[in-house]
């Protein structure tokens, strides 16, 4: 699992978006952090500039990797209301659970709710791998739905440490059935917390990337439990098979010299390339102009770019592995029975965890855990259960599902894309470009999402 994180997606959530900071970084207080995200965006920038094809679709970035990393330029996003009535919920899903001291800041599952004053439909939004409830992409979607008159609740991905610590029953993320049951429980708790304050006409569900695939499983669960009776479910850039998608991302690391085991060497080499570029160019600051020139000057080769995407995915995966190991006390990367204090250095665990591949995690941790729960399941069967094909009968039988994805989304093969088209028919919307999630915040895409639920 944990596939689809690219550096930007991941790090932007630390530092917010450029538009928030344009020309405003001043002050004595922590101002440096404000533009730091640009740095990683720069590192990951791609070599080939794109040209908008003349096909009536205005999203400009042609390359799949580029689009995934750069996302949507601020000027191509819609205008949103300045003020959104919203608050953060802190849910105590397992009130008796003891939180490991290293996660002292985890006071419960964080969800964000935006609410209308009047009676309105409610949309639940599930982010992709590593997405917290306040990830910029989710917040953009939240604003779009809010503007269109919906209540919105955003949920963190089951792959985040917040979710693993506070809302995962097993503490072992990666299983679609279990993760979706955890999500459903969290949605129920969120709903219980707000239902006294807002009036809801009907429920909708939407997720992107891994969250899209989870949304399908959540909807299936709801068909039995009938708590929400989702009227429509939109899956944005879903993965058809988790295992296949992650394999493709893992392969991106294979092209670096020495392979993935030498990712540190690779990282440092890319970093010095980046620094030299900065110094020789006499740039004054790490800002949009600098970013643009990296893009134009093709600083990184195609393989290097792929390697950087793969590496940033590993950095995300490492966080998930470490969090799960601490919560379950499995002795995978942290010694079993060791209690880490908030002030202990955990840098070695960072290095160890990020050097593990998804296959390591799958073969040594995830599959053995579920094999114990479901001993009859072979590895092949288990892999097959981690995807949409395992519930295709259900997906076919219902017309509430829709899919929005891109022709050049690198987590899907041509066969998988055709499969989606065949499964969902005319409810499949495939844009000509956008890579993986690159066009999610583009105004036309946001308008399609809202229209799908209207």
């Amino acid at each position: 699992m944990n596939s689809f994180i690219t550096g930007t997606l991941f790090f932007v959530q630390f530092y917010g978006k450029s538009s928030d900071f344009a020309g405003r970084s001043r002050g004595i207080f922590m101002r440096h952090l404000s533009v730091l995200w640009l740095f990683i965006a720069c590192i990951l920038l791609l070599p080939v500039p794109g040209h908008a094809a003349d096909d009536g679709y205005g999203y400009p970035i042609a390359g799949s990797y580029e689009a995934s990393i750069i996302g949507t330029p601020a000027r191509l996003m819609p205008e949103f209301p300045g003020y959104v009535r919203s608050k953060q919920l802190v849910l105590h899903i397992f009130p008796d659970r003891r939180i490991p001291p290293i996660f002292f800041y985890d006071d419960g599952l964080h969800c964000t709710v935006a609410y209308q004053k009047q009676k309105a439909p409610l949309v639940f939004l599930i982010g992709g791998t590593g997405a917290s409830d306040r990830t910029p992409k989710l917040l953009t979607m939240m604003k779009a739905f809010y503007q269109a008159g919906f209540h919105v609740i955003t949920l963190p991905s089951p792959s985040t440490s917040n979710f693993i610590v506070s809302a995962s029953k097993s503490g072992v993320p990666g299983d679609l059935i279990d993760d979706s049951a955890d999500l459903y429980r969290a949605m129920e708790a969120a709903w219980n917390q707000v239902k006294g304050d807002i009036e809801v006409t009907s429920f909708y569900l939407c997720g992107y990337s891994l969250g899209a695939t989870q949304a399908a499983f959540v909807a299936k669960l709801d068909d039995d439990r009938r708590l929400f009776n989702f009227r429509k479910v939109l899956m944005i850039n879903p993965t058809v098979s988790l295992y296949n998608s992650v394999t493709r991302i893992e392969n991106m690391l294979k092209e670096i010299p020495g392979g993935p085991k030498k990712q540190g060497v690779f990282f440092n080499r890319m970093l010095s390339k980046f620094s030299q570029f900065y110094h020789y160019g006499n740039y004054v600051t790490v800002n949009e102009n600098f970013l643009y020139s990296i893009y134009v000057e093709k600083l990184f080769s195609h393989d290097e770019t792929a390697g950087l995407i793969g590496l940033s995915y590993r950095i995300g995966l490492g966080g998930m592995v470490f969090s799960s190991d601490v919560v379950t006390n499995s002795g995978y990367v942290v010694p079993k029975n060791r209690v880490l204090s908030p002030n202990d250095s955990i840098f070695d665990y960072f290095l160890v965890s990020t050097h593990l591949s998804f296959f390591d995690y799958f073969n040594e941790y995830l599959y053995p855990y579920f094999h114990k729960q479901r001993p009859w399941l072979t590895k092949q069967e288990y892999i097959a259960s981690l995807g949409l094909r395992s519930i295709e009968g259900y997906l076919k039988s219902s017309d509430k599902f829709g899919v929005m994805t891109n022709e050049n989304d690198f987590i899907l093969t041509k066969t998988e894309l055709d499969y989606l088209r065949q499964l969902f028919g005319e409810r499949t919307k495939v844009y000509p470009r956008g890579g993986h999630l690159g066009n999610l915040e583009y105004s036309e895409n946001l308008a399609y999402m809202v229209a799908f639920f209207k």
Partner: protein
Amino acid sequence: MTTVSRCRIILALMLSLSFAGCASTRVNTQPEVPPMHSISEVRDQSFADVADPWEGFNRRMYRFNFYFDKYFFLPVVNGYEFITPTFLQDRISSFYNNIGEVKNLTNSLFQLKGKESAKTLGRFLTNSTVGLGGLFDPATKFGLERHDEDFGKTLGYWGVGSGPYLVLPIFGPSSLRDGGGLAVDTGISYGIYTGIDPFGRLDDTYLYDYGIMTLDEIDARHQQSFRYYESGYPFEYYMVRFFYHEKRELESATPLPEK
């Protein structure tokens, strides 16, 4: 009470708060078992690493800042955002950003950057006049780009290394060099506040001075959307450390002569 003693009390309070509860629940009755994967099997260069000999202290400060934000700073900022119309918030931000130009100017002069100093001076004069005392920022529209400078960068420019990573209480990620630079810049801006003394003719001068400085800090936090531990990533401390360090390394280095 003098400012110094006031600061001391606040600092003592911070330290006691941040260390309280640190001697937390390290109760471990069962023997440790080595993990399946350990650092000994990693045969690779370390990466995203930064010199951090005071990590224990820094992690405590990082944690203190999280609590300080949560229980004090952010509630104050939220209250400010709630009672102040957005238009007014933006004017206030603009006003303080303009005052910050003085720090940018002094430091770009310290670095003998003629062209940049002229631009910054131009910005300051334009925004102070046409921009109605800094309430608006027409200079950017006229093509005068902002150049953020500070004394940490000045020191870096003249060859002073960053020194160990340092997380400052309230101010957040820094380094030994940048922390010192911050003190110098704060001194300069304090001098400016008292030097300009816009309320000098009034009796309660110091009240206004404090008010202006407090609002400055509130506005600065208002402009900064970073939240401690919000990423949902357990190695956030290291990511923040790395990005801070790299950005400063890039921006404070002596630029190479033009080719």
